[in-house]
């Protein structure tokens, strides 16, 4: 990990926790401002078009005079929302299949492993585009697509973890003592995989957001008047040759920033919960 100067008052663990808290606060602020920002600011204003960043319009305005800062924040909030649904859906599928593979015998395991390999053999983005296209695009298409494409790697991690726990001594003892499979799953296995699950979920998140932006960018996602970050970016491409750099620069930077935030949360949580490193 990053080496921190000795005089810094926090130790590594506290520092990691700080980073998580800062990132969470930041994301919550974005989400809330996305919900509560005045819709009036993205109303078209045909007299104040194409203006570069200023105090009034932090990120400038677009070709219809809409405030880019408001659009960007709303877009990020929408993207986070879509990402949340997609990531929860994917993580649930991963949890379910991972548990099934590890507990329901050889045949189920082979089938599910095959399924995981199948999905991993094609880049997600391709599958995602196919599914979104099949469902006719739009909000539904993109959410279903994201949910159905992002589970395999997490499912594989969970499967391995569950298998390891199943062969642990305390589980064997528990079984000899006549506890049911369900009791063991709930009391022994689930508590042990919760950290992996949560971290997996957090790390899925940035992935899902970026893929949402990518699919929307190529026009298969949300309707183009909605303030989604992918739409903002793809629209801005048309105006780049007209010299309106601020349309792409700030929203792009913000997307990168948000995705880094989620990445940070995930990485640091992993570091905090990892029993092997958790000793200093």
């Amino acid at each position, binding site marked *: 990990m990053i080496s921190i100067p000795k005089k810094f008052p926090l130790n590594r663990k506290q520092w990691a926790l700080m980073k998580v808290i800062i990132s969470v606060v930041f994301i919550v602020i974005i989400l809330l401002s996305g919900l509560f920002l005045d819709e009036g600011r993205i*109303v078209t204003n*045909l007299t104040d078009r194409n203006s570069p960043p200023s105090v009034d319009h932090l990120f400038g305005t677009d070709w219809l005079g809409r405030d880019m800062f408001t659009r960007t924040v709303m877009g990020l909030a929408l993207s986070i929302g879509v990402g949340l649904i997609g990531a929860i859906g994917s993580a649930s599928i991963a949890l379910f299949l991972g548990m099934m593979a590890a507990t329901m015998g050889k045949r189920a395991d082979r089938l599910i492993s095959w399924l995981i390999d199948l999905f991993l053999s094609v880049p997600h983005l391709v599958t995602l585009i196919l599914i979104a296209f099949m469902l006719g695009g739009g909000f539904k298409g993109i959410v279903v697509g994201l949910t159905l494409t992002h589970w395999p790697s997490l499912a594989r991690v969970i499967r391995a973890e569950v298998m390891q726990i199943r062969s642990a001594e305390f589980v064997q003892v528990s079984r000899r003592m006549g506890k049911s499979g369900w009791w063991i799953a709930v009391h022994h296995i689930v508590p042990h995989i919760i950290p992996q699950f949560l971290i997996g979920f957090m790390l899925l998140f940035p992935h899902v957001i970026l893929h949402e932006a*990518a699919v929307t960018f*190529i026009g298969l996602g949300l309707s183009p008047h909605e303030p989604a970050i992918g739409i903002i970016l793809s629209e801005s491409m048309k105006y780049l040759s007209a010299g309106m750099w601020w349309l792409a620069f700030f929203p792009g930077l913000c997307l990168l920033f948000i*995705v880094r935030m989620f*990445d940070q949360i995930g990485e640091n949580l992993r570091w905090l919960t990892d029993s092997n490193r958790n000793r200093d």
Partner: protein
Amino acid sequence: MVALVAFISIFTLAGCNSSRPDSADVGRSVASEVKKDELVLAFGSEPETGFDPTTGWGRYGSPLFQSTLLKRDDKLNIRNDLATNYEVSPDGNVWTVKVRDDVKFSDGQPLTAADVVFTFETAAGNGSVVDLNRVRKVEALDDYTVRFTLQEPQSTFVNTLIGTGIIPKHAYGKDYAEHPIGSGPYQLVQWDKGQQLIVQANPQYYDRQPYFKKITFLFLSEDASFAAAQAGIVDLAYIPAAFSHQKVTGMRIESLKTVDNRGIVFPYVKSGGVTKDGLPIGNDVTADPAIRHAINIAVDRHALVDGVLEGHGTPAYTSVDGLPWWNPETVIEDGNLEGAKRLLDEAGWIDTDGDGVREKGALKAEFTLYYLASDSIRQSLAISVADMMKPLGLNVKLAGGSWDIISKSMYSNPVIMGWGSHDPHEMYNLYSSETAGIDYYNTGYYSNKTVDGYLEQALHAKTEEEAIEFWKKAQWDETTGLSVKGDAAWAWLVNINHLYLVKDGLDIGDQRIHVHGHGWPATDNIVDWKWTK
């Protein structure tokens, strides 16, 4: 790392989006050998189905390779081209056209009446956009006389003669669309699909030889087209309005007037019905004339022209603004919010629950406006209009989609559409109750007996001059009509000027009012183009 990779992938995708990245290089190699009598033009749209007039080629702009019986001059008057004269029988049913006897196809064979008959029979057999429904038979009376017998008089039949290039009977086959032979001013040299089209002057051409002996059409995306112009490798490039503020040295911007219009078509009837295919018809909100009039009055068309089109356009009041059959009385004063509010108040649309949206009984003054998601101008118009309607207490929700999606909803929801043609038949198609629900024509199921009467009279007039009076009356006859002053079946918004970057010194003649489509309409008078220095 994950973030970085995915972020890069977004930009890679952006690269795939502009589908013709290589064409600029092709252009450069062509341009390096440009001589004075050669031209390189950058156009966006390629006629993907090829150059067969019987399936629609040449209806917009010059057919290049073929020539037509009649043509319009730059003032839109009808002139002879292949024909030496034409006569319409007193009952309007029989058109007799005399054809020049000195015309040869580019392969040296003479053009005769048999070729004309063959052209129209093939077109009728193809069942394409060439509308020959009302033609009973086409026959050659002698080598140079053709007789068209119609089922009933049709004043717009003349546009079929203007729009259909004559194909050679002896050289027409399956691959004609890719290897056209005709009697037009140019002949095909090479067509690289998706990249370029090269043509050269046809030495057999019977009329004045064109100034430019060789023309290369490059099919470029908007960005690439602009870049090509900046690099100086094209003599003319089509550009979108967003680029109009930038100067390109050695080129000027030509902003050409058009009837390439955009407007909102409203469902005219109340909801409840379904089409043959089970799609819903009608919309209770837009069926109320007060709503349609209020939108027409409240919308600020000049603001749309300045804001969305960067000033390169004109306000639209009908589908035929500026054409000979346009009734100028249809122009109204718009941007009038107070007048629109009064209209809605009087019609009983009042905001009783204070949520900013008016109601009438249980009905809320809201509807969904559909637009073509891939077209940024339609999107901008939709967003702007929706925002203009907010202070009025009308809640316009938006839905962007492909034509597949729109065509399922277009009979029951307002849609942003675009039309514009030199053929007045289009007005008939858009407003006649005969064409209600046929494809994209009259999707609102508009019908008004008086207007229908005028439209039929116009259609059945013997000549275009006679018809013009009825076309005008259909729009507004002092008491009723299809335009804003009457039933306001549409809210026409703007006519989009076509912008071209043109090299200094290149004279592209008097461009007539352009029709729907950016690119080919400019070639209408390509024979007259020349260098002035």
